[in-house]
Structure formats: C-alpha cells, structure tokens
C-alpha cells in the first residue's frame, strides 16, 4: 500500500476513535445528569464504572497520535489534526471525569433527595448537552461556524450557572434545603459549567485544525 494511503487510513482511524470516545462521554454526561434528576444510584454507579473505559480510550488515542508523529513525521494539516486530536482526547477525558463528579454528587444527594433545586439543573444540562452535540458535529463536519457558535452557547451556560447559584442562596437560612444540599446542587451546576468550557476547547481545536489559527471561545 502507498505510504500516504496508509497514513490517510490512520488519520480516519483517529477521527473514528475520537467520535466513539465523544459519543461515550456524551452518554456518561447524560446518565450522570439523569442520576441527579431521578435520584438513580444504579445509574450513577454505572457512570463511575464506565470512566475506566473512557480513560482507556484517551490512552489509546494518545498512543495512536504518538505513533503517527514518530513514524509519519506529519506536517501542516496532518500535524494539526494529530496535535488537535491529542488535545480533543484530553478534553473528552476531563469531561468524562466531570460526569463522574456529577455521579458521585448524585450519590451524596440521594441520601436526602431534593426535588425543586435539582430541577433547576435540567435546563442547564440540556444546554450543555446541545453544546456537546454541536462540538462533536463541528469536529465531524469540519464546520468552523458550528465551532464558533460554541462561544455563545457557553456564555448562555455560564449565565444559567450564575442564576442557579443566585437562586440557591437567595432563600437564606429559611430555605427548604439544607446548606449542604444547596452546596451539592451548586457543585453539579459547576461541573456542568466546566463541561461547557471543555466543549469550547473542542471548538478551539476544530478551528486550529481548519485554519491553523489559535482562537479563544471561552
């Protein structure tokens, strides 16, 4: 096989691995959010266990990128795809960790479930889920516009997070929830907000692949 063809196949393999990992991370985030909203301990446990598989995918992608750098000595667009691929895997892995943080917080909350404040997270979680979809689509379709849109979407998530925290602590000492419950809900908001930040990193990596320019979407 021509060396360039073999390299192209390896680059496609890298893309597929990243998409697979992206899909798994998105599912973990969805399950983690569902475990918070539905007080589902089994689901939270599954998210925690699944993180090992996400970490393995990260290492596998890193190994592939290192092998391609060592054996193909990539330049220009190829080099950008590989370097950005490594960064994408790191961001996805961190998003997976944040899903685990959500799941662990869900387990702590399930001891004394709170209905109303948890529901406040739902809109924010949906916005973050849309961001994850948009980020992965931007990568699959090499869509610079979709990548740039992530900045606005992240602003909206940040706004939701500020509102959530303000509402949680506006009621003062007479609120129905304990301070610890309110703090845990705020943590969940914080984890979702951080996931949004990592998705903007994905957008930045996509723009770097496409243009070679560095951008700041966050």
């Amino acid at each position: 096989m021509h060396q360039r063809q073999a390299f192209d196949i390896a680059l496609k393999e890298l893309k597929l691995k990243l998409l697979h990992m992206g899909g798994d991370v998105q599912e973990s985030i969805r399950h983690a959010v569902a475990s918070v909203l539905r007080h589902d301990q089994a689901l939270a446990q599954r998210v925690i266990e699944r993180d090992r598989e996400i970490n393995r995918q990260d290492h596998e992608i890193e190994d592939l990128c290192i092998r391609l750098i060592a054996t193909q000595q990539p330049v220009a667009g190829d080099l950008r795809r590989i370097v950005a691929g490594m960064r994408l895997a790191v961001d996805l892995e961190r998003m997976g960790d944040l899903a685990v943080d959500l799941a662990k917080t869900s387990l702590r909350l399930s001891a004394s479930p709170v209905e109303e404040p948890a529901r406040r997270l739902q809109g924010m979680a949906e916005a973050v889920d849309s961001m994850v979809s948009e980020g992965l689509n931007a990568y699959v379709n090499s869509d610079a516009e979709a990548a740039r849109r992530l900045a606005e979407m992240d602003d909206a998530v940040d706004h939701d997070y500020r509102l959530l925290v303000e509402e949680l602590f506006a009621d003062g000492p007479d609120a129905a929830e304990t301070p610890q419950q309110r703090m845990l809900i705020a943590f969940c908001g914080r984890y979702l907000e951080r996931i949004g930040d990592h998705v903007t990193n994905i957008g930045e990596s996509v723009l770097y692949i496409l243009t070679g320019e560095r951008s700041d979407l966050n």
Partner: protein
Amino acid sequence: MGKSMTVRRLQAWYGQHQVLHNIDMDIEENRVTAIIGPSGCGKSTFIRCLNRMHETHPQARVDGDIRLGDESLFDLDPVDVRRVVGMVFQKPNPFPTMSIFDNIAIGLKLAGIRRSGELRDRVERALRMAALWDEVKDRLAKPATALSGGQQQRLCIARALAVEPEVLLMDEPASALDPISTMRIEELIEEIKQTYTIVIVTHNMQQAARIADKTAFFYQGHLIEMDDTSQMFTKPKDKRTEDYITGRFG
C-alpha cells in the same frame, strides 16, 4: 558576514524549454533558505542561476536580475561570482588525484595565495570550520578519496569555505550520506550560517524543517510560496504546498 541576495523576475530556459518563470525572492543574509519541490520543479536550476552556473550549459539562457548585496551578478565576471557564491553538490566531488590538503589549497592558489604559511593557515581554518580538522590533521597528505563519504562532503564544504564566499549554495548536500554524516552536515550548516548566507536544495522535508529559517516551495518552475519554515510546515498558505509536504504528490 554573508550578504543577502535579491532575485527579481528571474526566468531560465534550456533551449526552448522554460524551466523558471518570473521568480522573485529575497534571500536574507546569515540565514538558511531551503528550496523544496518535486523533481523537475526547477529548484536546482534556480540555485545554479545564483552563481551563474546555469549559463555554462550550451543551450541555457537567463533573464531577470540577481543582486548580491547591491551588485548585480550580471555586472560581475562569472568566475568572480563563483568565488563569492560557492556551491556544494549532491555527490561529494573531491579532486581524486589530490591530497586532502591540496583539495583545499587549490582554490586558494587560484585566488593568488602563494605563501606556504598563509596557505597552511587558511587550509586549517577551512577544515576547522567544516568540523573536519580533528579527523584529518594527521593525514593531510593522504588522498582525499581515502575519506568516508561524509568526510568527503565536509571536505568539499571546507573547499568552498576556504575562498571565503559570501553565500554557500548546497544542492542536496546530504542525500548520499548516512544518518550520522547527515546530522554532522546539518550541525555544520547551523554553525556556519553565522558567517555565510546559505541556500540549500533538499528533497528531505524534515531536513528543511530542522535547519532552514526560510523555506521556498517550487512547482513547475514557479515559486509557489516562501515563508518562515515553521509557518510553511504547520500552516502553509497554498494548497499545492500542503499537498506536496504532506506527501500527496511528488
């Protein structure tokens, strides 16, 4: 110190066949400029124009201007041009019947240096500059052909440096050498660029990326793109450059 070269509207022909089309290029002094491109793109013809060697071909013709510093090469005697713009070729080509010493001394003698003391000093200085002195100082009278391929190439570089040129042209100087000898040539280029302006033709992309400050991509006789090497190898502007350096053609 090396001098800059300025190329304007350079065109070159072999008979009816035009091999270079309107090349404009600024070659900065004391920098390494790499010329890359697929076989037949005109890169060797281009550097052969830079010391007026192209014109030695019976059917060759050149148009346009090349300036070394402020002077047009075409206002100078071609022999003088080749002294100030030296050339090292792909295959080491020491004079086979001459000793190591005489291979360097011959150019100096032709330049009018006769005193043996000065000749010895200049030969030693050139060999030191080419990082060859320690390896040959005890066998200067031995034939140059007794040296390894890598040593012979450094001898040719020493020969070119002995006459103290402003610019050194190198046409794939390491393509016939093993990796260790290649590394020594690359280290040497890095060192001597403090003193000389260097233009190197190479087929080895990684070599260009390692040693060149500027890289120029030639294709079908045209200069497609020239930029800082780091820019060329991470973010080339022209799709043809990208396709060539990523191995999609050539």
